[in-house]
């Protein structure tokens, strides 16, 4: 194993982390923590095995640990207790691409349960095999398949929801602004309203 091999994977790790968190800073935090882990566990990597899958396993563990923490990195990052969600929203809304569609996709992605989001991204984005994803996330292949299926179906629902004005969602439809706030809720646990 050499460092060049490791650095070759960094762009993909960054892209995956970016899609997973929807946030540039959180993504780079995730990548850095992953690399740190990779450096400290270097000797546990078996030469000849898939380095990329190993790195994604490390990143999965870091991500899960972050989720277990009571407040997410974005809140903990010193943005203050007053506006964590607004910051999250801003960050989701102020990216490079500028395409509304991409923003919408990212927002909907963030509304998926983390395990579905992870599975969906590892497969769709990283093109890892179902078995590899099972190994990375530590669950049986059957679970991967059902997460994938539910994640895809849910993402579709979310993407279609605004267009159809959600006729069957809620009896009393919330105002659209409220809805757009709700979309980011999974990213940062929000104050009680």
């Amino acid at each position, binding site marked *: 194993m*050499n*460092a*060049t091999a*490791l*650095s070759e994977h*960094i*762009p*993909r*790790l*960054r*892209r995956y982390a*970016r*899609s997973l968190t929807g946030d540039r*800073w959180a993504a*780079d935090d995730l*990548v*850095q923590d992953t*690399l*740190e882990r990779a*450096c*400290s566990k*270097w000797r546990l990597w078996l030469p000849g095995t898939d380095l990329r899958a190993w790195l994604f396993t490390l990143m999965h563990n870091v991500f899960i640990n972050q989720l277990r923490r009571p407040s997410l990195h974005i809140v903990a*990052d*010193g*943005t*203050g207790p007053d506006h964590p969600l607004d910051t999250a929203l801003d960050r989701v809304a102020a990216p*490079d*691409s500028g395409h509304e*569609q*991409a923003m919408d*996709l*990212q927002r909907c*992605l963030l509304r998926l349960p983390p395990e579905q989001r992870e599975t*969906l*991204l590892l*497969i*769709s*984005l990283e*093109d890892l095999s179902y078995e590899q994803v099972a190994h990375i996330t530590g669950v049986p292949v059957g679970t991967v*398949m059902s997460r*994938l*299926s539910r994640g*895809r*179906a849910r*993402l*579709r629902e979310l*993407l279609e929801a605004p267009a159809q004005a959600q006729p069957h969602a809620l009896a009393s439809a919330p105002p659209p602004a409220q809805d757009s706030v709700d979309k980011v809720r999974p990213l940062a646990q929000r104050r009680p309203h």
Partner: protein
Amino acid sequence: MPDTTPHPTQGKPPTLPPDDVLQALIDQRLPHAQAQAAWQALAQEPARAAAVRAQQADRLALQALHADVLEEVPSTVLQATLARAARRQQSWHSAGRWAGMAAAVLLTFAAGWWGRGLQQAGDSHELALDRQPGRQFSAQASVAHAVYAPEQKHPVEVDASQQQHLVQWLSKRLGRPLKLPDLQAKGYALVGGRLLPGDTGARAQFMYQDAQGQRLTLYLGALPPSPVQTPAQTPGTGQPASAPAPLAAFSFSQEGPVPSFYWVEGDFGYALQAELPRQALLDLALAVYKQL
């Protein structure tokens, strides 16, 4: 394949494949024949077929979503790798393996970043093998400067307009209250700052710029404990870079891509970098020092 025969070969009606197969279809992982069969079966259920197509499109959209990130130069994280490798190399006595790795990372880094200005590979090799924390610190500071100072689009993570947030954020991440030196009197305005990884934790970089666009960075963070640590002295003349105990006080280094003055207070290191003559840089370093 013509779909005139509703009951192909085995005489089975084209039942909808199980969900696993449909997922594999969406992921384009089915062998051609199997995919054909799946589409044929789906033709009987237009709604399901439409959903599969929509999910195929979603998959492509996800792949395109942050494709630009692949093109970005991952400077911060590469630096993290560099720092980690350097730390391992430092803490591991049988250093051969890690030294090699640190050098490799550094060379990778160098190839990407110093490409045009790099003098010899030998320099960076020496840098990676340097075991003295102060020198390593200033070398990292210098590399960080070389990476971010030329940056036009994203020179900083938090810009000067959010100065208070910047200071609070970096103070929190570095675990101590930081002060932001004011260099207006010297003709340098704050651009902003960013968080960087160092080999003993978080490091901060503050960037300043003068009217001509000349940039200056102040790099700070905790240093690894050193057996030869001495308290900070009043800054005077810079020591040569090859001084045996560079942790001592106020030192000048030209080892990195950009000249640097660095000093230590307690367990905290500071380094100031700019493409400036030594005396001008010292003058600025003193101005910073007095305000901290």
